[in-house]
């Protein structure tokens, strides 16, 4: 999630109201206030509202929400006469370019900080770590148009930002901190993306690093923006967010001609919505007349058409509006979540328990009646606990996760008894006897089903006790058709174990745990256990 630092003084200047009014309303347009400090607040905005990732964008939205300035913001785009060409050789590498010129900027610390933070947040939220979109901002006065976006040989040299020596692009990937961080995006290509000016001076090596030449300082007034990437829509969306933020900061926007195409447009998009549909979704009695002012507070243009239709003009920076319901949500936000009527749905239905959950509830009652206490172990485990310590061969149906976090969590459990022994091990120093059970999911390959298991440890735990206990379960669960058969499970002692059979299929096991297993779990007293597949009961 993007956390944006809002400098109060700058925010108040742009919003034209005081900080307390703003802070009070911020959560109600959709944000989490993380920290409130002396001179700034850190606020988290949602990943769909990338237009709020700058102080300028927040001020624009708050002016609307607080009724200070409502309706569609207009952004004039003049022509700069500057042109850009894109090398067709970039096709498989990084083919999309967006650009604009912004003039008459007067940077101070607060606005430079806001612009830098906006770039970083967009790199993360839209750019997917710069792979989909990367942004470069340059001091236009240091370079000479027209500009060229080219696929360059990798040994091309220039001085990267924050360095004084010139380096090859390969060297940058090896040595520059940004190069190392983002090398993965380009290193597989024979040629690298590069932006140069009319004199072949380097502006940028997207998406890695700008040149030192075009560094933006507090003296910079005119900016060239480059946005490169792999996705046209994401690139244009980024250009719109940055250009309008600069315009809010007082800059004037000028277009650039890229291969004959004038960009950016910053024109709003139009949608015709139906106020009846909005009313049905939200459960509010909304008419076009009621919706229009709500939309305007969210900075849409809105105009009632005939019947229940409303023409909505969507500002260019609102890339999150994909569907009419996205607009309806803004209507709800403008209306105020705190003012919403909260009424129970009239839907009448009769509830029912999941059969497996019902079975677990009942079998748990039997176990508790026998003095067993429930535990709820993890479902992620490992081969050591499940098989090695149990003295059992590894199960072929154990499903291994591809990138486990630790050696403790490599498979989904196939059995419950090892999980119980692990819990007895944790409680080794607690008072005996200990009798525990669990019922829940296990996996056989990709299939999930349920098992139940019990285990007890105390100095006189023996086969007679577990056999009698298993007998109780089978009687209580009405399992007349199940039978007991000899078993040779290495987890149990020979001659002190049995199998529960459903016809010819083994569905359960019980007995005195093998002393090798007891010792492997670092236990010191006799342990008895029982485990059974629930499927025959369901």
């Amino acid at each position: 999630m993007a956390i944006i630092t809002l400098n109060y003084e700058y925010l108040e200047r742009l919003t034209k109201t005081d900080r307390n009014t703003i802070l009070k309303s911020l959560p109600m347009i959709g944000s989490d206030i993380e920290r409130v400090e002396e001179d700034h607040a850190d606020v988290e905005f949602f990943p769909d509202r990338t237009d709020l990732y700058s102080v300028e964008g927040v001020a624009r939205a708050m002016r609307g929400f607080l009724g200070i300035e409502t309706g569609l913001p207009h952004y004039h785009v003049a022509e700069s006469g500057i042109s850009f060409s894109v090398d067709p050789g970039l096709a498989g590498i990084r083919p999309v370019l967006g650009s604009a010129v912004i003039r008459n900027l007067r940077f101070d610390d607060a606005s430079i900080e806001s612009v830098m933070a906006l770039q970083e947040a967009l790199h993360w939220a839209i750019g997917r770590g710069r792979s989909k979109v990367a942004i470069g901002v340059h001091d236009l006065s240091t370079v000479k148009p027209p500009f060229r976006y080219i696929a360059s040989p990798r040994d091309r040299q220039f001085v990267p930002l924050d360095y004084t020596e010139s380096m090859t692009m390969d060297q940058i990937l090896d040595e520059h901190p940004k190069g190392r961080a983002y090398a993965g995006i380009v290193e597989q290509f024979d040629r690298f993306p590069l932006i140069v000016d009319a004199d072949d001076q380097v502006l940028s090596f997207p998406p890695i690093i700008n040149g030192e030449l075009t560094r933006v300082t507090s003296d910079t007034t005119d900016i060239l923006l480059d946005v490169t990437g792999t996705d046209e829509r994401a690139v244009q969306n980024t250009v719109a967010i940055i250009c309008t933020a600069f315009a809010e900061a007082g800059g004037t926007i000028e277009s650039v001609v890229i291969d004959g195409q004038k960009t950016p447009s910053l024109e709003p998009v139009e949608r015709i919505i139906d106020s009846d549909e909005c009313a049905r979704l939200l459960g509010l009695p909304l008419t076009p007349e009621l919706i229009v002012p709500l939309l305007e507070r969210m900075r849409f243009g809105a105009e009632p058409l005939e019947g229940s239709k409303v023409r909505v003009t969507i500002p260019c920076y609102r890339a999150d509006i994909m569907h009419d319901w996205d607009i309806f949500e803004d209507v709800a936000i403008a209306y105020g979540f705190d003012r919403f009527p909260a009424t129970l749905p009239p839907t009448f239905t009769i509830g029912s328990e999941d059969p497996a959950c019902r079975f677990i509830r009942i079998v748990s009652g039997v176990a508790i009646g026998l003095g067993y206490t429930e535990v709820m172990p993890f479902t992620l485990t490992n081969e050591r606990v499940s098989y090695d310590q149990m003295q059992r061969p590894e199960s072929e149906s154990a499903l291994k996760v591809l990138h486990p976090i630790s050696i403790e969590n490599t498979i989904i459990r196939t059995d419950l008894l090892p999980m119980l022994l692990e819990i007895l091990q944790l409680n080794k120093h607690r008072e005996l006897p200990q009798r525990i059970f669990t019922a829940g999911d296990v996996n056989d390959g990709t299939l999930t089903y349920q098992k139940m298991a019990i285990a007890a440890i105390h100095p006189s735990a023996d086969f007679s006790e577990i056999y009698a206990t298993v007998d109780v379960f089978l009687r209580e669960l009405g399992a007349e058709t199940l039978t007991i058969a000899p078993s040779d499970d290495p987890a149990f002692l020979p001659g002190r174990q049995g199998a529960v059979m459903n016809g010819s299929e083994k569905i359960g096991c019980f007995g005195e745990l093998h002393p090798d297993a007891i010792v492997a779990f670092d236990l010191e007293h006799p342990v008895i256990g029982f485990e059974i597949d629930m499927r025959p009961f369901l």
Partner: protein
Amino acid sequence: MELTANEKRLLAELGKHGSADASILADELSTDAAAVVQWAHLAAGRGLVQVNREVKEEYQLTEEGEAYARDGLPERQVVESIDGEIPMGELSRHPLAKVAIGWMRKNNWIVIDHGIARKAAAIPESPDEIALEKIAAGSMDLDDCGELKSRGLVTVHEQVRWIIEITPAGRNLLNAGIDLRSEAGTLTREQILSGSWRNEVLRRYSLATPPRRIYPGKPHPYRLILDEVRTLLLEMGFSEFSGNIVQSVFWNFDALFQPQDHPAREMQDTFYLEHTSELPDGWEKVRDMHEHGGETSSTGWGGAWDKTKAEGSVLRTHSTALSIQYLATHPEPPLKAFSLSRVYRRESIDPTHLAEFEQLEGIVMDEGVTFSHLLGFLKEFYHRMGFSDVRFRPAYFPYTEPSVEPEVWVDGLGWVELGGAGVFREEVTSPFGISYPVLAWGLGISRVAMLRLGLKDLRQLYKSDIDWIRNTPSYRRI
């Protein structure tokens, strides 16, 4: 006043002595002194006797001490051997000189001057000699034992004696008469049937003695919370469903309109498996939705949707993967359903983050249900969970629009965010032929458990200390 049988026996015996040592009483009562002291303390609590603890030091000669008691202390033996004066060189050849010289000087028995030891005119008995004689004679009646202890000639033992004395109140009670017949503990079948219990003195048990602590078999404290939620939803007419832990990427992400390059899909956050899943019939509609919004007013995400990505398998990252499948197989209204299931996130494990935890998810699908109904339902649900103050804030989830975050008031913590909710996007429902609004909400139920049980470490729920389970009450008022 109800005395125990032992107190009565003690009082009767003490009546003969007035005051006696516990060990003497123990002999008379055929028990040990510790038991007598315990009974006496009980009786003292009722003012019937007084218990006095006396500590006495007892001295015992060491082997070396025994020898000196017989032959005299080294300084006595050496000084006796001096006739008037003696050069130090010669004196030091005496076998006991090393020990004796210091003590002779300390006792002022000799004066050393220019290498000559001169014997004093009178050699009085030293305090050590006096003490040694007394101890040897068996007397314990000394104020101290001089330096004998530090010289290693005697050892000192603390002797604790318990002197028990009957008080006037005890004497009165005794004079009034005490029933010394033996008491009956557990009743026998014979005593009950014959009625002979009427003639027995039935032991009366003291409530002051704490009971033995025993532990029942019981449900896990977390299970009780999960069951409370299940019951609540069943009461509200919801049907329960469950499903596979392993889900296709299609159901876990694509069907929920999460873009294919969404960060939550990365290996870093999600457990992937090698297994490839088959896509359900009609998967093309999901593809169309991603690419251009299908037949809805949506623009879709644009770009090309990659089928092979959707065929991957993951451990379900949210129970919404189960909800959408339940909806796809039950597309006709009305429907109210929920699941309480484990979900998996590839997180490094710490006290508040686990790789698996329970998620509650509920859905309501019906003609005419609205966002306003969702808020109404959430309010009701949280009230029933015991949170009386609930408020709503806008939120963002990729598969709902509008989205909302309910917050509940918790004393001491303030407003706590508890789950998320919204109306399923048309992009989610439309490919599966669901043509009515679906209200959905989810809740990390382990957060509720942490609040309820006052846990600081979530791992306690899954790798439980059995004493914590034993000592956590099963019931609490809502």
